[in-house]
Structures are given as C-alpha cells and as structure tokens.
C-alpha cells in the first residue's frame, strides 16, 4: 500500500508538472521547443557578449565549490568520528558484542539445630532466552510447543523487562532431560535459546516444618518497586534484586532472606548480532548464600507434627471436626523454638519454579482450612482455662483473692445474683476449692469469684488484665517470623471503643466481663506462642526469653558459625508476692497428676515430673477448642509445649496426645496407652 501511495503522489506531481508547464507556456513564444533540429550546435555562440565559455567558467567554479563542500562535510564528520571520538565508538562496539550474563547464586540451606538439612538445594535445568526472541514469533511458538507451555506464557516470560535486557530470561525451570536434549540437538531451530543450570529448593522431609521454613518464589513487582524506593543508605549492603530472582516469600526463607540469598555471579560472553554466544570472556563466580541453622530439632519437630496428627485423629474419632491444630515447643531457658507445627500443612516444593494459580487459589480459598497460615503465631483463640494460673497470680498479687481464700463450688455459681448465674464446667460442683486446687481442677467457681472481686476492687479493677499483659499477652512475642498476631486482652477502654456503635450501657465493662476473662473466655484472644511464652514465664519465675528460630548462620566455608543468635529476654514479670508463682506452679503440677487418673496415667510413664493445664475454649456455633500446655521437668523447667486443636473437643482429649507425643520424643519415652482411653473430659 506504501508503493501505491507513492505512485499516486508521484502521478499527481507528474500531472501537475505537465499541466503547470503547459499553462505557463500558453501563448508564450519562447525559444523553447521540445526538440531542436540543430543538435548541440549553439545557436548564438557569441551573442550579447555572454558566451558559453565566459559564463560557464563561473558556474564550473560554483560546481567545484559545491562538490568541495560535500567532501569537506564528509571529511569533517569522519575526522570527528574516527579521530576524535573513536574511543567512544570503540566502547560501543565492545558493548555490542559483549553480554554480561548473570548466574544466579544458590540460596543457603536451612538446617536443623544438629545440621540436618530441612531445606536443601538440587541442580535443575532451565531454558533461558534473550529478550530479542520475543520478535521471533515462529521460534517462540515452537519453543512453547516443545516446553508444553502456552504461547502467551512463554512470551510473557521473555518480555518481562526488569531482569535487564542483557541477561537471559528464564522461561522454564526443571525442564525434563529429554526436552533439554531436544533443544540442544536442534539448536539451529532455537536461536538465542539456551540451557542454564540453576539450583532449586529441595525438601528432603517434604512438608516437615513447612510453616517454619516457608517457601520461595520469584521476586514480585511490588518487592522490586519497594527496593527502588529505598534511598542509597538503605541500599548499602543489601542485595539488589532483578526480576526473576528467587526470594523467600514466607517463614524463615523470608525473614532471613538477606542471609540465605547469595550474590549473583557474572559471566561476560561475546555474542553476534543474532544473540548467539561466540566466545567466553571473563567470569565472576556466584557466591552461594549462607546456610542457616535453626533452633528446630527435627526429632521434636516430627513429634509435633505427629502429635497434631494424633490429636486431630482423636478428635475426629470422638466426632469433632478437629481439622486444624497448632503446636509449639520452646526451650524456656533461652527462647529457642525446638518445634513448631501447624496443621493442615502444605508442600513447600509446590512453590518451586512458580506455583500454579489453581493450587494457589486452593490454598487460599475463603472457606478452606488456610494451610498457609502458621497457626502457632497467627492463630487467635480464646485461651480458656489455660489462663487460670495467670488469673490466680493476679488475685494473689493484688490481694483480691489470696492463697488463703476459698470458694464453694456447687456447679451453679450465683455470685452475681441468681439472674446472672453461671455454670462451672463440672455441673456437679467441685466443693470447696482454693486457688491451687482451683487451678488443679480448673474450677470455674473459684475464678468467677476472683473475677468478681477484681470487678468490685476499688484500686485494681483491671488487675487481671494487667497480670495477663505482664506475662506478655496482648502483644507480639517478637519471634523471628512475620505475620504474628497480637492477640487481645480486653479491658474497659477496649470495650468502649470496640463496640462504639452500641449504647453506652451495652459497651460498659461489667462484672460478667471480668468473670469471663478470669476463666479465659469472653473477648480474650491469644496465640499458641503467646500462651507458651506465658507458661515459660510461670516456669521460669517470671522470666520470658524472646522466642527465636535462628540458631546460627554457618560461615560460607562451612567451618563454624559466622553468626550466632544471642538470646535476649523478652520480659521479666516482677511479682511482689512470690508465693503467687508457687501457687500457680503447684496447681499446674497437681493438675497433671491429681485431677484425672487417665491424664495422670499418660504422664506417669515419663522419667520427669510435668506441670500443665488443659483448656477448652468455646466459640459460638463451633465445637470446642482444646488446649493443653505443659512444661517439664517440673523442678528444673526446660521444655514448654503448647498445643491447640481447633474444634477438637476437650483439651484433655484432643490436645493431650500432642503434648504427650512431643514429651515422648524429648524423653525418648513414647506413650504406651491409646490416647482414646484418655477420655476424661476435664477442662
């Protein structure tokens, strides 16, 4: 169509020229005739004193000058290009032919505390291509067919522009050997396509500790953007990411990204205009990221996950849904997390090389079990009876319910009048109980009285909440993971603002609220790790160490540790009345061995004395949430294990198997009694 247009334009020009000249000449009687009969012979050789020779001399000078000007211009430009700026063009020519290919560095491995790899690396073959390939539709289609990928997907990978035009773009990783061989054998059909060696994440233990280690993925556009927005100071010492880089997206992979990420290598190659490599030139090898050692002990981790499985199974066998659970095992002497499990789990290997959107949607669907969530740190639950030792300590500390006081439990508690009567979980009633036996038997009546006393106490009406906070509830623990929930310690101010659309009467703090939180119900929310930490505090006489997963970073030569995590105190709960701790500890100890024979049987086989507390939380419209938190040994506490089974029924039924399995792994003493026999429904 271009040629046609030119023809039309030129034709128009032609016609215009002819018509124009004819019109112009109309009636003119000039010398011009289209053909002269006299040939070249000048008709007026010497007419008017203006001979050809004379006039042409000047014209020839002009012509020569014109030609000279052309030569001068060319000369000047050539001089400036080839003599003055040739270095500049040399550099450009060099740049033309060289391409710096970055070679991705393997990420550091993630090991357990004994050096066993939880996350390892394995070699993988990747198909890579330069961006120019996008213009070659035929090759792209062919490549898409060979790789079994949609054409558009291949094209998008090639055109992805942030990886830098000079670097090859990864189109597919983990390509089958046969496909690789096909591409290599038919290299001429795939100009600009090459095979690169990559390392990919490998998970020798499958989904083990998946919520701890997290998963990797290609760096997102948002992350790249965030990186661009950093100023120079912040950028110093950090890794500059390119699109296509694999980075940690969750768990330890994310939190310790800077340790795990290696430094890209660079390889300079000579290429021709087609983008095909013609020669190698110089290389800086990639530097792998540091291996890191976690505080996790594979043996305990496996026990945590096995325990969750058993706990959920037990719950299901007695007819509860029990479809999700969490368990954490912390060394209370230093905050090291020895095991951390959340169920349901996921396969981190599904994220290698990019997770399919179907699977991603499945993992994140609204009405699903949300397996990507780490329930240990992100699950918010009513604490239920597990909070009772803290309530008891608050009563003693503030003097509103001292260790000498007792309550009489008749099953139906009417401390706030008959109209506001409440059941103790044991409807038959416990009889007379003090704080220590109240903890042991989880007697609600004792704690209703305690909560009521706080409500009517003039000096410390919120002493309960104060004590909960003193042990770290209501705030994040500072564990080295993201996505930790804060939990909630409700008080008058919170209720006032939370229900701001309600009438002032309805949102005023009342005695019922106090009695509710005293037994861990109502609006209180805790995470399993918060509760574990609170029990660390009880076991360690008020000292809580910040929970952490990183033990050390292994130095790059593999010898020794380059960096060791220094444990730090999270908080120290100061208590004026030291006997408060004793009451709580004894109560917990007695709960294990005295409250229920079937519970006691489970723990008697262990070589150490255990202290602990069950809990059974209520959520409207759902089955009971079963808790069990223990620490051991009782005399010299080291291990704190907290577990919860969502909608699993009584804690002594569904959560007991979890802690017992973990303790069994720690002390190499597995339970010999079927957990289904432990059906005493104690709260």
């Amino acid at each position, binding site marked *: 169509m271009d040629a046609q247009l030119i023809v039309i334009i030129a034709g128009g020009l032609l016609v215009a020229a002819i018509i124009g000249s004819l019109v112009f000449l109309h009636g003119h009687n000039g*010398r011009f005739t289209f053909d002269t009969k006299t040939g070249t012979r000048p008709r007026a050789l010497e007419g008017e004193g203006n001979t050809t020779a004379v006039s042409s001399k000047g014209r020839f000078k002009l012509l020569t000058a014109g030609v000279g000007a052309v030569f001068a211009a*060319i000369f000047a430009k050539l001089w400036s290009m080839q003599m003055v700026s040739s270095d500049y063009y040399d550099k450009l020519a060099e740049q033309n032919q060289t391409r710096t290919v970055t070679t991705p560095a393997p990420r550091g491995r993630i090991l357990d505390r004994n050096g066993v790899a939880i996350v390892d690396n394995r070699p993988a073959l990747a198909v890579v291509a330069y961006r120019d390939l996008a213009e070659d539709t035929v090759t792209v289609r062919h490549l898409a067919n060979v790789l079994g990928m949609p054409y558009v997907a291949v094209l998008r990978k090639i055109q992805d522009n942030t990886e830098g035009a000079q670097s090859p773009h990864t189109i597919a990783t983990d390509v089958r050997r046969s496909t690789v061989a096909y591409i290599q054998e038919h290299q001429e059909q795939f100009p600009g396509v090459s095979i690169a060696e990559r390392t990919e994440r490998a998970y020798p233990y499958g989904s083990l500790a998946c919520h701890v280690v997290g998963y990797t993925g290609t760096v997102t556009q948002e992350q790249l953007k965030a990186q661009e927005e950093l100023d120079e100071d912040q950028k110093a010492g950090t890794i500059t990411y390119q699109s296509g880089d694999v980075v940690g997206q969750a768990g330890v992979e994310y939190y310790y990204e800077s340790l795990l990420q290696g430094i890209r290598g660079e390889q300079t190659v000579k290429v021709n205009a087609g983008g095909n490599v013609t020669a190698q030139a110089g290389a800086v090898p990639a530097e792998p990221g540091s291996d890191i050692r976690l505080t996790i002990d594979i043996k305990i981790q496996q026990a945590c996950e096995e325990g969750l499985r058993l706990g959920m199974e037990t719950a299901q066998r007695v007819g509860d849904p029990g479809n999700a659970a969490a368990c954490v095992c912390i060394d209370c002497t230093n905050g090291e997390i020895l095991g951390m499990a959340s169920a349901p789990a996921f396969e981190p290997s599904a994220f290698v090389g990019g997770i399919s959107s179907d699977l991603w949607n499945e993992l994140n669907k609204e009405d699903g079990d949300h397996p990507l969530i780490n329930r240990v740190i992100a699950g918010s639950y009513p604490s239920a009876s597990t909070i009772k030792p803290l309530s008891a300590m608050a009563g003693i500390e503030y003097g509103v319910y001292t260790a000498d006081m007792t309550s009489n439990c008749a099953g139906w508690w009417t401390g706030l009048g008959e109209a506001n009567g409440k059941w103790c979980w044991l409807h038959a009633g416990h009889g007379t109980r003090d704080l220590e036996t109240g903890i042991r038997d989880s007697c609600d009546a004792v704690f209703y009285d305690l909560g009521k006393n706080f409500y009517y106490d003039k000096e410390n009406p919120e002493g309960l909440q104060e004590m909960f906070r003193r042990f770290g509830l209501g705030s994040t623990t500072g564990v080295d993971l993201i996505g930790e929930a804060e939990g909630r310690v409700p008080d008058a101010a919170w209720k006032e603002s939370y229900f701001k659309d309600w009438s002032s009467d309805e949102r005023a703090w009342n005695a019922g609220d106090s009695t509710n939180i005293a037994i861990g119900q109502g609006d209180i929310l805790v995470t399993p790790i918060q509760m574990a930490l609170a029990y660390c505090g009880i076991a360690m006489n008020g000292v809580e160490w910040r929970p952490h997963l990183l033990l050390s970073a292994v130095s790059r030569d593999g010898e020794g540790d380059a960096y060791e995590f220094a444990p730090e105190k999270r908080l120290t709960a100061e208590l004026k009345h030291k006997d408060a701790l004793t009451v709580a500890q004894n109560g917990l100890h007695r709960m294990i061995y005295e409250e229920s024979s079937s519970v006691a049987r489970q723990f008697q086989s262990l070589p150490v004395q255990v202290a602990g507390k069950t809990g059974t939380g209520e959520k409207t419209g759902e089955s009971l949430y079963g808790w069990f938190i223990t620490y051991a040994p009782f005399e010299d506490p080291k291990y704190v294990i907290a577990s919860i089974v969502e909608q699993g029924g009584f804690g002594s039924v569904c959560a007991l198997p979890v802690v017992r399995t973990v303790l069994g792994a720690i002390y190499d003493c597995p339970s010999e009694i079927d957990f289904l026999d432990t059906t005493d429904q104690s709260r």
Partner: protein
Amino acid sequence: MSQDSLKRVNKRMVSNKSTLRQNVNVPLFAAWAGLILYGAFTIWTASLTIADASFTRQLFGIALGSVLAFICWRSDFSGLASMTTVLLVIDLIVLFSPYFPGLSYRAKGMTGWIKIPLIGLTFQPIELAKLITIFYMASLGAQYNGRIDDVREYVKLCGMLLIPFGGALAAGDLGSGLVVFSSGAVIIMMSGPRKEWVLCTIALLIGFVSIMLAADSVLDGLLGHDVLLKEYQMNRLLVFINPDADTSGAGYNLKQSLIAVGSGGFFGKGIGNASQAGEGFLPEAHTDFVFALLSEEFGFLGAMLLLALYATLIISTIRVAHRSDSLFLQLVCCGIVGMWTFQLLEEVGMCIGLMPITGIPLPFISFGSSSMLMQCAAFGIVQSIWRSHGKTL
C-alpha cells in the same frame, strides 16, 4: 574559434605521445580503476563473513561494467542532444518497467527489479534511468545556449525535471529519485539560470519539504493512515535527528553504522576483524552500508583514500566538462558529477549520520551489478566526451 581551442589543436598536432592522453583522461581512468579495485577488495573482505556478498558475482559485474565502459568510450553521444522526446519516453518506460508484466521480478521483498527475458538476469532499471535522465535534462538545458533569460523558461525546465523525478518516486525508490533530482538540478543550474532564481527555488524547496513533513503527521493523524511519507520514512528522518531515539527499530541501523565507522579509528580494524559488519550488527554491510564496512576495516586512512579517489574522479569529470566544446556534453558531464556527488554524499552521509537513511549504492564499491554496470557506463561516457572534445570543430 577561441584561442584556447587553437592552442589545444596545435598541441595535439605537435606530439604523437599525447594521442593516448587525447583519447583517455588519465587521472579519470586512474581514479576509476582505483575505485574498482578498492571496491572489489572491500567486497572480497565482506564476502569472508557475509554470505550474500558473492565475490565472483561482483567480479562478473566489474568485467561487464568494464566492457560497457569501453563501448561507451568508443561511442559518440552528441547525437542524443536532439532526441529529447525519445529520451523522455524511454526514461519513463525504463522507470515503469518493473510494473510491466513479464518483466517484473520480486523476491525477498525487493521491489523495483526486472528480469530481462531470455537472458534471465535481474536488473534494477532505476540505475539506467539515472543516466537517461541526465541525457534528457542535458538535451533540454542545452537549448538555452548557456543562458536562461526568461523566468518562465526556468520554471518550465524545472517542471521538466519533475517528470522523471516523479517517475522514480512512482517506482517506489525515494533514494534513487533524489539522485535523479540532484543530477537534474545540477544540469539546470549549469544551463545558466539567474542565481536569484536558483536561490528562490532552493528556498521554496526547503519550505515545501518542511510543510510536507509538518503536514504529514497532521494528515496521518486526521486520516488514520500514512498519507505523504511512509511511517518508516518518517522514522528514519526522526532518528536522523536523534539517533538514540529508538535503538532497536529505525535508529538501530544508523546507530550500528555510526559505531562501525567510529570504532574503525585511524587505521581500521583490519580485514576480517570488523566486528560490527562481521558479527552481523551492521545490516546491509555490503550494499547500502558498504562505506561503514570499509571505514570499520580500513579506518580513517581507508576512508580518506576512498574520498581521494572520488575527488579525483569528480574533479576530472568537471575538467572534462569544462574542456568540452559541446554544451550538451558539458551538461551531461555535469549531470554525472551531480549524480556521483549526491550518491557519495547520501551513501557516505547516511553511514556517518549526515543524511537520512535511504537505500542507494556507493558507485563502484557497493555490491550489486546494476549499479556497477551503469556507473561504469557513466565513466565511459565521460571518457567518450573527453575523446570527442575538439572534434565538433
């Protein structure tokens, strides 16, 4: 008869040695021979890395061209002066021959080629048309005896040039059209119009081109498709102004060419070491961008040698024209000077960013036989004019 001519006649009579010099303009011949050899050598180096650059085919073109040059040298062209109409008709036939059924030859997206029946050789008729246009314009210009007094006559002459120019554009070749235009313009200027008219014409031309460029984008925008200039032509003009504007599309060729020339430096990179041409970064390295190839391999020195050869060729031609007694033949020489100078300016200029990119060959150097043949013919014509001078007496 002028004094000058008498002297020359006497001189000729005195020495028999000058018989050769009388028949052959030696500097012109030397420059031509130098260019042919230089060109052949350059194409040979190109053939080492570029598959399309067939050295034997180029040698064949040179041989054929030399024969044609010899024939032209032995011919007398003064008779063409009175055949204006015939020349115009032939010119247009030649220009439009690629559209004739049976002649048209299209392959690999090339346009403007014909396949000569029976022989089966392909040829670019525009190259022949350049020469015919020169004769046509010279025959017109010669009718004024070296002085155009009437502005209407001048305008008419200019209008006559637009016919072959339009024809060349119609054939779809802007670059060659400009060559036709330039050689014709030189002939008109040498035909003796007043300087003011010429200056006015140049001013008008510049004005017209500017308006057209401005109108082009407006019209394209209004009508939604290319109206005056094709988009790639517009892009070429834009990148000519700013080569970095688009380094992958239209600007790529120019940028690669600049790099090739500039990185050649003083001595050049040597035979076969030209990475720009050899590794395929420089497109059309043996044809349109042959000067870039040559400059990369042989550097500033090589480029200067080439310019020196061209300077000798062109200046010698001007001298031949100057000495010729026939106004018609003078104008033919001037047209050839215009053609060579413009092709040099355009071909070299586009390689070094002085001119917008068009696809025309560098005379005697670029790969391709059509150009080689016709340029050799032009050389033969100039030699013939040299041989014929004085004979009209």
